[in-house]
């Protein structure tokens, strides 16, 4: 057995290089923002940010898994809204627990539909989930009747608005999601299958892995995280209207990509997705604090997505030489 392992060391270095780079971008952002806006580093601002980030974080955990498996889900924003709307509507009739449980089931159900159509119909998941994006959004309008639903029980809102050690509970829940996601990806047979299917479907299938089944399971997972995030959002805001979380899907996919997950599947680290979400949230926060016209926000986010993906592609090309 050989003790020295130079190739492995180089690999580790390369991996941590990507991580260091993401952290460096984050650090630069923090420094620049704290200089430009003195309020930025205040605990009020930071804990607010944590609360706002929670929904994106939870969905991003699921999105990382589905993207490693080589698929996308752009219906998540609509599923967040639909689950929140159903939960809110049912809560007033049947109480908190049944309402939450029923609304949580919407996510995996839509995910199952997305997965089956994608794999059995051999249609790109991007297109299939574009369809469910519209369908779920429409259902959210049906459920709310176009009205804002509020008047939720206090014990439910306590989850979304409470704090533990002065940290918003939704943020802590989101971190828990990442812990579970990391464990599943790194330490379970299912996780290894997700990577294998995303890296090379043929190799995986010939190795006895039911690739379609794995992909369907991944789409059910991301659906679940979306429905779960919908409930967290509902508890945090205390009210829901049908066009909540529009465009969330692209912000989340951007965060996953900024976190280094391959757009083509097979590669990625779920913990780095957290950094991606934080970077996007910070930029939005910065634009808010510096009173730049709100209409420019999406422009900035879009530009950053392109820059991140481009940087990633250029680095890979250099690395291959």
């Amino acid at each position, binding site marked *: *057995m050989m003790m020295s392992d130079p190739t492995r060391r180089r690999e580790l270095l390369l991996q941590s290089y990507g991580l260091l780079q993401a952290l460096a971008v984050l650090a630069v952002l923090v420094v620049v923002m704290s200089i430009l806006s003195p309020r930025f580093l205040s605990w009020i601002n930071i804990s607010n940010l944590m609360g706002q980030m929670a929904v994106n974080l939870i969905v991003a955990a699921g999105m990382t898994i589905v993207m490693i498996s080589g698929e996308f889900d752009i219906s998540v924003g609509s599923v967040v809204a639909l689950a929140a709307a159903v939960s809110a509507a049912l809560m007033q009739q049947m109480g908190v627990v049944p309402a939450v449980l029923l609304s949580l089931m919407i996510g995996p159900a839509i995910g199952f539909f997305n997965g089956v159509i994608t794999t059995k119909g051999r249609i790109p998941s991007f297109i299939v989930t574009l369809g469910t994006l519209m369908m779920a959004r429409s259902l959210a309008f049906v459920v709310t009747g176009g009205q804002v639903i509020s008047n939720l029980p206090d014990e439910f809102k306590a989850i979304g608005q409470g704090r533990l050690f002065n940290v918003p509970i939704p943020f802590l829940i989101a971190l828990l999601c990442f812990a579970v996601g990391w464990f599943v990806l790194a330490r379970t047979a299912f996780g290894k299958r997700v990577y294998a299917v995303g*890296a090379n479907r043929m190799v995986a299938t*010939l190795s*006895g892995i039911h690739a379609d089944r794995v992909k369907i399971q991944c789409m059910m997972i991301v659906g679940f995280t979306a429905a779960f995030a919908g409930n967290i959002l509902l508890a945090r805001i205390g009210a829901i209207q049908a066009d909540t979380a529009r465009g969330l899907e692209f912000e989340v996919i951007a965060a996953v990509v900024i976190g280094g997950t391959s757009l083509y599947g*097979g*590669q990625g680290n779920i913990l780095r997705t957290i950094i991606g979400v934080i970077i996007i949230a910070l930029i939005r926060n910065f634009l808010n604090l510096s009173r730049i016209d709100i209409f420019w926000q999406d422009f900035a986010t879009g530009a950053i997505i392109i820059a991140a993906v481009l940087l990633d592609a250029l680095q890979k090309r250099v690395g291959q030489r």
Partner: protein
Amino acid sequence: MAGEPLLACRGIAKAFGGVRALRGVDFDVHAGRVHALVGENGAGKSTLTKIIAGLYPADAGTMHLAGEQLAVTDTAAALARGIVTVHQDVNLIATQTVAENVFLANEPTAGPLGIIRGGELRRRTAELLQRYAIACTPDTLVAELPNDQRKMVQILKAISREARVLLLDEPTSSLTETEVRMVLRLIRELAGQGVGIVFISHYLTEVFEVADAITVLRDGALALTGERADLTLPEVVAAMIGRELDHQHERGAGRLIGAPLLEVEGLTVRGGPRDVAFTLHAGEILGVTGLTGSGLDALGKAIVASPDTKRAAGTLRLEGRALEVSTPRDALDAGIVLLTNDRLREGLLPESPIWENVTLPVLGRFAGTGGILDLKAMLAAGRDAIQKLTIRAPGPTTPARALSGGNQQKVLFAKWLATQPKVFIMDEPTIGIDVGSKAEIRAIVRETAAAGVGVLLITAEIDELTSLCDRVLVMFRGRIVADLTGDAIERGAILHASVSGERAAA
């Protein structure tokens, strides 16, 4: 012999990085005649035709077209002089019509805007179709054509460029027997119109049917050339393989061949094996070989139900019991594994470390409650594989991509051996690896069989068959045409069956 040659090549030589692909070859093409160019893989056929087509320059030698010195510098120059190649793959646009394909990038146009004259396009295509009696219309979509008509459209496309010399690279390789007849008839008609034709083919029976003259290349040199009428098929085969001695066999050394293990019957794949049947015994190395287009490449995949190879018919029996295999998982559960011939695209995950690669098919074995993996045991399995198969790698965490071809192939062997297979199908197990690794891989193949595994060795390398196999099946256009054992497993017999589709008269 017909007078002045249309194309005269003299002393053509070409080397690629020290390997002499052509060593001064003379080759003539006469107007109105079909000149067949044959030889084993790597004999220099494709190098010669690529030089004629202007794909790369010759290191030495001259070419004359109709008496004029031919200085072909690129393919466009060759095309301009009427030297047109029809490639082996059908490179037509399936979603466009026959007429659009025939005149692609060569359309009759009107005016400065280059507006296509659709009427003339169709009329000229119809003329061509009629002249060569091809039963389709100019407006038929290529996607709707059978294989032979696609090939003929591809040839028409070449003709429409006013070809004087037509280079046909394996024009019949993906066709069925009846389709072959149609294409050969078209080739004769073209020759009748005065086109000089170079016919490159592995199928010697077809060569004897269509050619006026035959040239055999071996190791980059001229081995035989003459009028077809003066040559026989055995003479041509002998010229292809030369007089080199057969390798010493080590077949069956110390191995006991056991009971029937895998029985395959009526195995059929569209465009691949047709009604193939054989029985593989425990401890046996059963070789299967054939040319490109013989259906060889689809055989292993069809048995394990690879998603890209649909079985049209066929039954499997394992140890006497009927076996239903509809996914690779079913095959794996039954103990049948396939080592693919494309390790980087279908075998390994190049970015993943060795330990992950070798445990991929047996993840369940390392998973405890809730599917939680025992990573330590998996790493140990990786270390074990490195030691057992002497994989030269720094450690089990090295990604497969960082290894040499031979060592990657050993990782692939380790991956499948880890599943403890009963039947091990190996598709070209020594493809693209160095000579030293080849010997090691062959030793692994022998050890595997010695341990009682039934080995189905699918290979185009004749050396591999003669040095490893207890029995050899030869496929030709999807069917098994020869079943060789003992001393019959010999280079000449294998090659004869591969190129002619018939057993050599012993």
